[in-house]
């Protein structure tokens, strides 16, 4: 299954999350016109979500993403952990079969 969720984050930037999953998350791709330094934090967040159960709740997913951001010491402008978590869940919820 693949789902896509897009949001113009309030006071921020456009965020689009694509999720491939089959019971568990196989692949997440985070795109948009936001800023993040160092840039590889986004790839680290994507990797950190692989293998996660699709039923993972918003809070747990947000904490996981926040932990990656904190470990990387990244500065994100225009999006945040809550927006990414929200859109991963929305993408899964609105997914269609590939």
């Amino acid at each position: 299954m693949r789902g896509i969720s897009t949001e113009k984050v309030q006071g921020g930037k456009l965020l689009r999350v694509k999720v491939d999953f089959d019971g568990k998350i196989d692949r997440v791709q985070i795109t948009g016109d936001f800023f993040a330094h160092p840039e590889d934090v986004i790839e680290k967040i994507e990797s950190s979500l692989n293998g996660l159960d699709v039923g993972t709740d918003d809070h747990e997913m947000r904490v996981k993403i926040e932990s990656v951001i904190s470990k990387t010491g990244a500065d994100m402008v225009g999006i945040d952990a809550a927006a990414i978590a929200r859109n991963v869940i929305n993408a899964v919820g609105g997914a269609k079969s590939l």
Partner: protein
Amino acid sequence: MTSSFNPSGKSQSRDDLMNWRVIPLSSNNAFMNMAIDEAVCEAVASGKFPPTIRFYTWLPSAVSIGYFQSLNDEVDVNVAKELGVDIVRRRTGGGAVYHDSKGEITYSVVAPESVMPKGIRESYQLVCGWITGSLKNLGIVSEFRPINDIIAGDKKISGNAQTRRNGVLLQHGTLLYDLDVRTMFTLLKVPKEKISDKMIQSVEERVTKVLNFGSFSMQDVSDAMMKGFTRDKEYEIGSLTDEEINRAKELAENRYKTDEWNYRR
């Protein structure tokens, strides 16, 4: 203006490094423009080169996409091919931009992080202040609108993007001189049915250009930017070194022209 820049290979003192190198307006293709910005970042990071301001245009016209954007989501590749418009992924975040070869001037600022404000918002504000100063030189009142825009007459006239790597800050951005909304919308992926007069009118209500404020030439704008960016700075008009040009050619071929880079998302 003072004489200061000596790319001799010797590390410069902090005082020397605060003497800026300013590279006047030139045209390059999209791949070289992005490669030059990166080559200058490497040169400044080495400690052998001073902070650098460069002005440039894009020839042929091009679309640049933000580091985190998906090329296929943002650009109609077939239309770009038909129009002879290059497409390149930037090292900086932000959105997709249509760079008309005669419709805008782009600048880049490359400086050690140590001489710039630490906060992203504060450093945007500083460099964007040089753009509002440039516009003021043309008699155009504008202001910085966080996160990364400059507005004039309540409409966007300049977009800017920044990244920091290896202790060096890169900020580049564009100042809109002219704007071909219809071409922009055929290139950027907006559903075709939305490219109606209403849509174009709507964008023109949100975006403006220098020509809306008077009959300025590109040279007038270039001169105003040179004055606005160098105000209160010690600087020297300079050029790229052979080392930077060769490195840029390498980066253009091995990164910025490659599908691996441009289609990575």
